[in-house]
């Protein structure tokens, strides 16, 4: 008998497996069937590894249940930015088409060790640069709540995949909001951990002082579990620190004794009215659960977007210098000399937005401009870090809308890069300050999901997830979209 995977959490998958109600092969097959049924519309996957997934599931089934690890046999989808040994990894770019990593990223090794089943690789904005997944070189992912709208980005495939029940949970990356913003737009949970909580070894680098890996899930308990699986200090990533305590299983039901600060700068005119309405009701819910909610001003955060669009492209211009057609990826067919080979390879291989950011970053770092742009941006970053530190003297957590708007129409912002960048207004400062941030579903505006962002001090993931769980239980926001005119 087939299992209905629509709306299943990873915890429910685990219970179905450990009680023997479902075999790992039945569960994996059910997800593959679900992908076959809906991914033609959603287009969240770039690659489905049916053979590998079924073989891994068969290996799980060959073991007695009592000898399995807790999450063994639970399927997962992966943003196409992680190196998975033997599985094509493109980062959404033509320049990496056909690249087969010879090694596993650290998080992939951890997932393998935990016994998770890899369903495949998920679509993303090229090199994680974008807020709509329209910058993928391969396909445009659609929002399961309305197929004419974007899923957000850059982890749009990861968010849409969970919303459409094409995997119980997925991993993404967040440099300026790339987990939280798509989670918000697709009505799922997305957590960006503290910088350093999760090893980036084997992650294709975008902006190394900001990139962080995190879970996209249907609820906060799954987010906590997946975080605990992948977090940890790693000798292969010298910036990794691990968590100070595991997130565990969130069970908090009240918020008494906690103080929440509403970031004043993120509830103004930039927030569309429907989003503001949902946000206000979330604030009421936090108060109803016994916490204190007060406005707090962080004047520096309004400069976050400007600082980010110097810092991130600068780092990207250096990180992406490695794509030169020598060791892996695309190489141009004709070149007289090395300079021409580099230039043609990169011009053919990179898409418009990636080139645009390489240009901004190269300009900002070039002779004569370094101090005016890069150094000034890094001073602004210090200003923002100080603002947050001051706010956390008075408050346990800070809140804001995750995204100023609900999911926009496909094509709507493609012609206006700055309008697209504004999607990440409320999420970017969190990366600049290296803080953990989570987006949880808070309600709907005109039928589209609206996310609430909660921000905590460094390494406060456990408390942040506990508080988010209490709110999630109180709000009871539906997370399963109706697809294909009424069908689930």
């Amino acid at each position: 008998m087939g299992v209905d995977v629509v709306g299943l959490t990873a915890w429910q998958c685990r219970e179905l497996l450990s009680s023997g109600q479902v075999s790992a092969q039945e569960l994996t097959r059910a997800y593959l069937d679900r992908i076959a049924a809906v991914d033609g519309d959603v287009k969240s996957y770039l690659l489905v590894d049916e053979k590998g997934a079924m073989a891994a599931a068969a290996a799980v089934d060959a073991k007695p249940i009592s000898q399995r690890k807790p999450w063994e046999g639970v399927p997962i989808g992966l943003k196409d930015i992680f190196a998975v040994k033997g599985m094509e990894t493109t980062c959404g770019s033509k320049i990496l088409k056909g690249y087969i990593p010879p090694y596993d990223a650290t998080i992939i090794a951890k997932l393998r060790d935990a016994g998770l089943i890899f369903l495949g690789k998920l679509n993303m904005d090229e090199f994680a640069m974008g807020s709509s997944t329209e910058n993928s070189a391969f396909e445009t992912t659609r929002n399961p709540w309305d197929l004419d709208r974007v899923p957000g980005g850059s982890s749009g495939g990861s968010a849409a995949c969970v919303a459409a029940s094409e995997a119980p949970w997925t991993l993404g990356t967040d440099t300026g909001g790339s987990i939280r913003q798509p989670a918000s737009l697709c009505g799922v949970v997305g957590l960006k951990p503290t910088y350093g909580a999760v090893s980036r070894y084997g992650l294709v680098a975008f902006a190394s002082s900001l990139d962080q890996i995190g879970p996209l899930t249907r609820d906060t308990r799954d987010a906590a579990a997946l975080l605990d699986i992948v977090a940890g200090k790693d000798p292969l990533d010298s910036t990794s620190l691990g968590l100070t305590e595991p997130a565990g299983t969130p069970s908090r039901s009240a918020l008494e004794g906690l103080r929440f600060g509403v970031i004043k700068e993120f509830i103004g005119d930039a927030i569309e009215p429907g989003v503001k309405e949902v946000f206000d009701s979330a604030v009421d819910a936090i108060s109803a659960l016994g916490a204190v909610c007060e406005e707090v001003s962080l004047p520096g955060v309004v400069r976050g977007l400007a600082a980010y669009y110097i810092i991130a492209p600068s780092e990207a211009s250096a990180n992406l210098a490695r794509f030169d057609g020598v060791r892996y990826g695309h190489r141009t067919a004709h070149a007289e000399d090395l300079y021409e080979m580099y230039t043609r390879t990169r011009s053919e291989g990179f898409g418009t937005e990636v080139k645009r950011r390489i240009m901004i970053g190269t300009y900002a770092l070039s002779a004569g401009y370094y101090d005016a742009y890069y150094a000034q941006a890094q001073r602004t970053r210090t200003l923002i870090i100080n603002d947050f530190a001051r706010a956390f003297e008075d408050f346990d957590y800070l809140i804001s809308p995750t995204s100023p708007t609900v999911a926009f129409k496909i094509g709507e912002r493609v012609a206006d890069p700055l309008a697209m960048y504004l999607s990440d207004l409320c999420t970017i400062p969190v990366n600049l300050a290296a803080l953990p941030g989570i987006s949880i579903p808070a309600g709907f505006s005109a039928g589209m999901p609206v996310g609430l962002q909660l921000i905590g001090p460094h390494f406060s993931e456990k408390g942040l997830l506990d508080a988010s769980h209490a709110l999630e239980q109180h709000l009871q926001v539906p997370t399963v979209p109706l697809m294909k005119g009424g069908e689930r």
Partner: protein
Amino acid sequence: MISRREVEHVARLARLHFDEEELARLQPELEQIIGYVEQLSELDLSGLETTSHAVAIKNALRPDEPWTGLTHEEAMANGPAVERGSFVVPRIG
């Protein structure tokens, strides 16, 4: 603000080539984005250090012990042009 010549210069530094049509589009886009980030120059940030690490991080040292890495073949397997165990590139300039 950003001249056409500057755009072409930066493109050379970044090892990118843009045709006429792309340049015509790119120049105003870069002007718009750089114009936006220029708001930072209005801020008085004197007395603030530039951020080097946003999280307090100590020296990350590990024991210097050899371990098994990739084989030569594995490391070369994705090379677009490989001959006798080496990456092959066109002549330099």
